């Protein structure tokens, strides 16, 4: 697996507690996020994985207060740097957005306003939170302009002279105080300066995604949430963009939640991983532990199904969540697909069990009283 990554400090910047989100449908509420709790530490990158439909995006949108109707937050608490997000008034929330929590969206292809230039979409978020950039008055710029104009030198090419003239004139008429700052952002995410004046449709998918990353970190928010930020890109670009994401995050010093379903890709970039199944976090642990020693039966299935180029193996995981999300099974959420399930799993919901430092798992097998059952079960698997 990846080398030991620095896990940052122990200060909690995001504390999600008992968050529950439903989607109201005519046939009853879909339980998309079911009482989840987790923490994010300063400077850390946390991965959130799970099959599609398990509630990753809904969790992200819940944290960001962006759950779209018919979805709604049933209960829970979301604290960012000690601020309870759910208690903010509308205007407070607006100001808190992007400075406290920012989003790198799932569909970068369509996440930029098609009728606005790239620069304008970055400028608007900066200006709506920091106020109008400090524009020099026209008179000041005029005096600079007048100082700069001169006669052509003897033998100077006309093109060069006119070019300089035009540049000065542009500075006079279209003064863009945020330009340098935006260029810095472009550089951080590996975008060429020439896209500054372009429209989204003139960019490639990878470029749009980078614009979204640049935009996401423009205000140095406390927490950045990247929702499948790379899923729509082709495999090679995916890796490069993911790498960019981590570099920018380290450079700017934000805390990051990366949502994805590609365990292999996530392993490269995250410090800790939270595994979600049907609206619940079933296991959360430092990335090395999850790959070397997956505990929850679902995590084991996921890790087992990472394709390997060295050997061909039959796929153990079957497709999708089997139960109706409006009507989850009693006890353990995973018991309908779990190879180890026994009667007790239907009776009681497994609590989060702290197995080792920072490694929690929600499965009865790790309850001390069922230790024997666990050894037998895992031994049987190892033998098969």
């Amino acid at each position: 697996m990846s080398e030991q990554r620095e896990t940052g400090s122990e200060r909690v910047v995001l504390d999600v507690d008992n968050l529950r989100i439903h989607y109201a449908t005519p046939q009853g509420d879909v339980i998309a996020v079911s009482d989840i709790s987790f923490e994010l530490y300063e400077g850390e990158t946390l991965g959130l994985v799970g099959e599609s439909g398990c509630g990753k995006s809904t969790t992200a949108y819940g944290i960001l207060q962006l759950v779209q109707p018919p979805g709604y937050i049933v209960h829970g608490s979301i604290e960012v740097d000690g601020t309870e997000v759910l208690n903010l008034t509308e205007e407070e929330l607006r100001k808190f957005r992007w400075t406290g929590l920012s989003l790198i969206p799932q569909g970068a292809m369509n996440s930029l306003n098609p009728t606005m230039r790239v620069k304008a979409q970055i400028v608007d978020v900066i200006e709506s939170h920091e106020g109008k950039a400090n524009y020099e008055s026209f008179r000041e710029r005029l005096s600079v302009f007048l100082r700069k104009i001169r006669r052509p030198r003897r033998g100077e090419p006309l093109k060069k002279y006119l070019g300089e003239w035009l540049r000065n004139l542009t500075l006079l008429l279209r003064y863009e105080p945020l330009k340098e700052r935006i260029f810095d952002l472009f550089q951080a995410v590996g975008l060429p300066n020439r896209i500054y004046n372009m429209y989204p449709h003139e960019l490639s998918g990878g470029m749009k995604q980078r614009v979204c990353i640049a935009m996401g970190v423009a205000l140095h928010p406390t927490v950045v949430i990247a929702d499948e930020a790379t899923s729509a890109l082709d495999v090679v670009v995916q890796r490069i963009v993911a790498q960019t994401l981590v570099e920018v995050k380290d450079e700017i010093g934000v805390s990051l939640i990366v949502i994805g379903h590609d365990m292999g890709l996530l392993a490269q970039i995250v410090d800790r991983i939270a595994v979600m199944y049907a609206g619940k976090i079933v296991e959360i642990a430092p990335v090395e532990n999850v790959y070397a020693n997956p505990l929850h039966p679902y995590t084991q299935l996921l890790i087992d199904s990472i394709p390997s180029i060295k050997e061909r193996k039959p796929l153990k995981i079957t497709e999708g969540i089997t139960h109706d999300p409006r009507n989850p099974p009693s006890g353990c959420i995973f018991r309908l697909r779990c190879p180890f399930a026994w009667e007790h799993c239907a009776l009681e919901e497994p609590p989060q069990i702290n197995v080792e430092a920072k490694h929690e798992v929600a499965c009865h097998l790790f309850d001390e009283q069922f230790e024997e059952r666990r050894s037998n079960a895992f031994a049987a698997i190892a033998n098969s």
Partner: protein
Amino acid sequence: MGGLSLNYIMRRLLVFFLTLWVAATLIFIIPRLAPGDPITAMVARMSQQAGFVENADLIIEGWKERFGLNDPVYVQYLRYMGNLLRFDLGLAMARFPSPVSQLVSRALPWTIGLVGIATLIFFTVGNLFGALLAWTKTPKLVKVLIPMSMIFTSIPPLLAGLLLVYIFGFLLDIFPQAYAYHHSFRQPEFTLKFIGSVLHHGFLPAMAIVLVTFGYWALGMRGMMVTIEGEDYMILAQAKGLKPFYVLYRYMIRNAILPQMTALAVSIGTLVGGSVLVEVIFNYNGMGTLIFTAIREQDFNLIQGTSFILIVTSALAVLIIDLSYPLIDPRISLEGK
């Protein structure tokens, strides 16, 4: 980059001239499909009124010769096209010997003014109301009031016109019932008093067009806004914590207005058709009334001329909208490359 490409301009111009040619040809053909001919019809009417017209046959022959109706059809067609190119629309037989072009040039500005201003109003009001209907932050009261203002939608402009004349012109008597300006002015002049009179007279006809039309635009706009609200970039706009009003106009209206512009270009023909009737009701000094007169008097030259000019004007309006489209939608000129 956004903006006009030469290719795009050329294609639109081609469509424009093609429209004019087809229209001119149809206008040439249609009257000739009808039985009888205008001269005979006119002389017959004269003899009806006077009881008897001396040398009727000679008159008919002479006029036919004068208007070239005895030449082979293709010669007539070529001469007709040649005249059109020089904007020579012939003489109005009903108001002999006024040239059609003179009558048209007197009437056209009034129609352009009336329809232009009405369009400006219903397009602005309609889209604004539609946007407010869809916007989640619109006050409840506004959302209740707007649909009530749309009761006139879908009744014919003709009826709306009659209703307005009856209520405001006849019962309340606060707006004039007819003409484009007060009869004390012998001809248009450039004074405040005259302009005031024009606005006073133009109010009801413009309202007749606006009232029946803006509801459609409001409903269309609301539909577009709802679609836009589901776009990915709207979620990002919300996440960015932009000011609500800024999001409304820069993210929502700005994108929703694009298909509305296309729809406007498409609807101009219908619009002009409807305004013809409104003009007739108000006896407005525009093209509508002129066409109406032409039809009543069976003046073929005048019918042809006025129809042609209305089509040219409409096509020109469409061309202007088409050409301004790439300026407001940066994606469109790509297609022209």
